[in-house]
């Protein structure tokens, strides 16, 4: 990569012309349904998320119009409750998370020096599920049947008794489907960051945004499952009367709060950390220097992520918790200020070290500093229990969370859009509307939310549709509303500015900001294939170290610059050092993700209107499409080592023991294990805390079912192992496959014995929990059975060989997980009866 520049420009153009047919989407509307290229998927994600931001903003204006004066007749309580519920829901679930996912999809491959994300079709699937789920939630609002119990949907208010309509059902199922989409994206991000990078890009040389996204993606995998479980419990309670949250039948409404905030508090950091990653990316470039304290910032990001999981109860300080519990969570809440401060000081140090230029992205970052620090300090105030009790459920909390979320997330994201505009559109800003928009938006924000702090300190409650005259809140609310409308005008101008500059501004030169990271080494806008060849990097700022690297890559002088195999290839590297280890073959255009998303969304949303048959058909379609999808992977012949360039011969991913699909499964099982852990937590919580326990009787395990489960665990764990070993050594896999089949059968029988022994899950929360535990076993038995059937067909069709054992190892992973968790689940179900 360091030889002098000799080959003519025509070499790069020839390579570009060869790569484009391989990587381009199909033309026209068809192309939008079948594309899985990160540029298209990320762009669509961005547009849809921005649309939801506009919808959420309009809802905010309706709220402020209502609260501008006391006793307002603008909205009645029914409409207001739906509006404020949907404002929070839209902003948190439909805008904030998808927006940074969009940026990650768009930018990560470029930053990491790879051509696309690890699972492009999974990314496309996630996009469509998000669009369908989000649209359902918005449609409910337009029809006036949206949820109205607040964005956190606390029972008993959200239970069937007090919210009998379909609004909460749409919320629970729609949002859960969006969470499935987020988990899909998170798996894609983790595998990409860990394995899909430029050659030589060790973990210590990764761009800081990639570190942040790695941390955030792992957080999504561990924070969303408790929320998915909570939604499942509430929906099952609403639909079938299983009393998880009904105190009279052994349930407890506070279980929801625990599950919700186990998700909800990390969620705040899931939203903040990508913005922090953007700040760490943009600020050094704007300051014409390098990020100060890279290692400290990485450590702070990891620390903040993990600590954030220890704060969930600080949203429950007013629920009657003993002082010691309050002190635990108050201490943990103050602790998060430390890693946050480390990041802030690293950024200040970067500014101090460099020569800042106040371009538009930098202005928004200054807006971030001014706002987020205030939001952080009011957060420390709220971490103090006595103050929290005073401010709980007042507008002070509303103001605090907007300082954190708008100041800490939206402002840096606007900076990011302006910063990456040349990369995404190929154009440099020409029209200067953005500066005006900034000077309207940021001051207006502070007018709005400083006033709201004040109203909160004077005692104004949140989530109330109006207030009486004479309480001293009239002028404050009027000021807040005027500020809010000015802020809305500011944001509208930002969107207008971006649209106008996207459509008609002048073309941008390559690397207009003089950045040092790999995404700026491509031609603008980034072509479908990203890099014409995979770069070899030796530092954290490869473009700064070698300004000609982009030209060399375009000429095919990196790895995989040969297009003769005529397929989408990219490099997989070792996790730590970034050494080339295999060649991943990425899928071409396909409508399968779209069709799978239709099937998934149908199975999720049909129960809202009681169409359980349609939901069942959707589920069946989901399984069929997923099998068709999986069947298209792999190969019937061994390809052996392929030429990757630079004298390297590497295996293709389908011929290594741990292919990308194995990594994806591992991460999905991480989320699954958190889901299962949350279920056990819920069981223990109800047991310990809920009234009307113990139940009238315990499940008696007997002898046969536990013996079946024990034997099932042994053969289920051993079977796929034996099959994989047999394939590896050229022997028959069938004994192992039969053993695995016996294992799942044994677990199916054991789980069925639980359900048959306790036929009424609606009677007591204990019985409902037993059904859930048995349901966990049953679901995984079904999944592993399908996988075993699929693997059998694959082996018969010639997709397995001693070089191609990856699929068998994936099944082995699922079988191990099923054996272990089924044993624990059934043990938890049987233990009380065995001793009591």
């Amino acid at each position, binding site marked *: 990569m360091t030889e002098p520049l000799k080959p003519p420009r025509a070499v790069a153009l020839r390579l570009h012309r060869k790569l484009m047919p391989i990587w381009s989407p199909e033309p026209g509307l068809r192309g939008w349904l079948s594309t899985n290229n990160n540029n298209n998927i990320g762009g669509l994600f961005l547009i849809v998320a921005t649309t939801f931001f506009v919808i959420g903003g309009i809802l905010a204006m309706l709220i402020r119009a209502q609260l501008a004066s006391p006793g307002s007749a603008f909205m009645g309580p029914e409409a207001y409750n739906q509006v404020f519920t949907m404002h929070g829901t839209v902003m948190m679930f439909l805008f904030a998370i998808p927006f940074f996912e969009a940026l990650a999809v768009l930018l990560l491959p470029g930053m990491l020096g790879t051509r696309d994300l690890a699972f492009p079709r999974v990314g496309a699937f996630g996009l469509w599920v998000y669009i369908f789920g989000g649209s359902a939630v918005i449609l409910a609002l337009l029809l006036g049947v949206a949820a109205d119990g607040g964005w956190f949907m606390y029972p008993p208010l959200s239970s069937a008794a007090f919210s009998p309509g379909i609004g909460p059902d749409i919320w629970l199922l729609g949002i859960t489907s969006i969470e499935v989409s987020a988990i899909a994206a998170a798996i894609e991000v983790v595998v990409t960051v860990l394995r899909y990078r430029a050659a030589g890009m*060790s973990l210590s040389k990764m761009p800081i945004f990639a570190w942040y996204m790695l941390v955030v993606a792992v957080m999504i995998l561990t924070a969303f499952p408790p929320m998915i479980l909570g939604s499942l419990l509430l929906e099952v309670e609403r639909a079938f009367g299983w009393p998880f949250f009904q105190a009279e039948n052994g349930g407890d409404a506070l279980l929801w709060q625990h599950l919700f905030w186990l998700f909800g508090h990390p969620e705040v950091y899931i939203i903040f950390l990508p913005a922090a990653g953007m700040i760490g990316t943009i600020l050094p470039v704007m300051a014409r220097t390098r990020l100060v304290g890279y290692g400290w910032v990485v*450590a702070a990001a990891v620390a903040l992520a*993990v600590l954030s999981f220890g704060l969930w109860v600080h949203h429950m300080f007013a629920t009657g*918790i003993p*002082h010691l519990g309050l002190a635990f969570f108050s201490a943990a809440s103050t*602790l998060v200020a430390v890693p946050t401060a480390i990041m802030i000081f690293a950024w200040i140090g970067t500014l101090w070290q460099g020569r800042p230029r106040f371009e538009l992205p930098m202005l928004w970052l200054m807006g971030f500093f001014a706002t987020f620090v205030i939001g952080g300090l009011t957060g420390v105030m709220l971490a103090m229990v006595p103050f929290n009790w005073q401010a709980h459920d007042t507008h002070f909390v509303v103001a605090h969370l907007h300082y954190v979320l708008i100041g800490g997330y939206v402002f840096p994201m606007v900076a990011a859009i302006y910063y990456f505009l040349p990369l995404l559109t190929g154009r440099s800003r020409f029209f200067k509307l953005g500066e005006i928009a900034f000077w309207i938006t940021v001051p207006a924000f502070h007018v709005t939310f400083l006033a709201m702090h004040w109203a909160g300190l004077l005692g104004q409650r949140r989530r109330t549709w109006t207030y009486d005259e004479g309480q001293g809140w009239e002028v404050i609310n009027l000021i807040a509303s005027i500020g809010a409308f000015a802020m809305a005008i500011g944001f509208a101008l930002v969107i207008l500015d971006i649209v106008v500059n996207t459509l008609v501004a002048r073309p941008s030169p390559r690397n207009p900001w003089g950045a040092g990271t790999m995404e700026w080494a491509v031609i603008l806008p980034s072509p479908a294939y990203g890099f014409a060849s995979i770069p070899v990097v030796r530092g954290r700022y490869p473009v700064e170290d070698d300004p000609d690297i982009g030209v060399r890559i375009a000429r095919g002088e990196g790895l995989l610059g040969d297009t003769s195999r005529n397929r989408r290839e990219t490099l997989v590297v070792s996790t730590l050092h970034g050494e080339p280890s295999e060649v991943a073959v990425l899928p071409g255009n396909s409508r399968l993700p779209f069709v799978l998303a239709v099937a998934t969304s149908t199975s999720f949303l049909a129960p809202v209107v009681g169409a359980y048959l349609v939901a069942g058909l959707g589920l069946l379609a989901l399984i069929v499409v997923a099998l068709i999808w999986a069947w298209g992977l792999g190969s019937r012949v061994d390809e052996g080592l392929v030429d990757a360039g630079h004298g390297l011969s590497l295996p293709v991913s389908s011929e290594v023991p741990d292919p990308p699909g194995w990594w994806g499964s591992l991460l999905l099982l991480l989320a699954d294990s958190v889901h299962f852990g949350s279920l056990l937590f819920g069981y*223990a919580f109800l047991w310990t*805390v809920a009234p009307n326990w113990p139940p009238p009787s315990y499940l008696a395990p007997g002898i046969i079912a536990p013996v079946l489960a024990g034997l099932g665990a042994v053969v289920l764990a051993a079977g796929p192992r034996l099959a994989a070993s047999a394939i590896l050594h050229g022997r028959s896999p069938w004994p192992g496959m039969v053993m695995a089949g016996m294992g799942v059968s044994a677990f199916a029988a054991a789980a069925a014995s639980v359900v048959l022994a306790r036929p009424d899950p609606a009677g007591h929360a204990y019985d409902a929990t037993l059904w859930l535990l048995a349901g966990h076993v049953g679901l995984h038995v079904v999944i592993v059975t399908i996988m075993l059937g699929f693997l059998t067909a694959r082996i018969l069709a010639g997709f397995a060989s001693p070089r191609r054992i990856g699929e068998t190892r994936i099944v082995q992973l699922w079988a191990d997980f099923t054996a272990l968790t089924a044993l624990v689940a059934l043990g938890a179900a049987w233990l009380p009866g065995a001793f009591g």
Partner: protein
Amino acid sequence: MREVIRLSMPLTVWLVSFSALYGLQGFVCAAGWAASPGPAGLAWGRLLMLAAVVVATGLQAMILFLIWSERLGGHSGFMHRTTLTLAVAGLVAALWTFAPAAILPTCDGEGWQEGVWTGGTGGNKMYR
């Protein structure tokens, strides 16, 4: 991958200890051990909590020592330094967040008097 797991270990262990301690407090209060007299004039519940704090803090200290002495492997400069920083953070987090268990009554709060539920407006009769 081992390096990534090692990196996340110190604070993950803290999180598990933190959650376990909170859960233990729940069991102690629900079982009434906070009012059950034990040795040295301390309630059994309090002794149990203190023992758990000592074990959890000791575990963090041991992890720090193992990482510092490179006994858990990992000699890559950047990753080792970052892991060490996080191990120190884990110990500090343990000392800071577990300290209340050594100072405050185990179950007192709204409706609680010296570990015994006496009524209140905050919720049901059991520990939250």
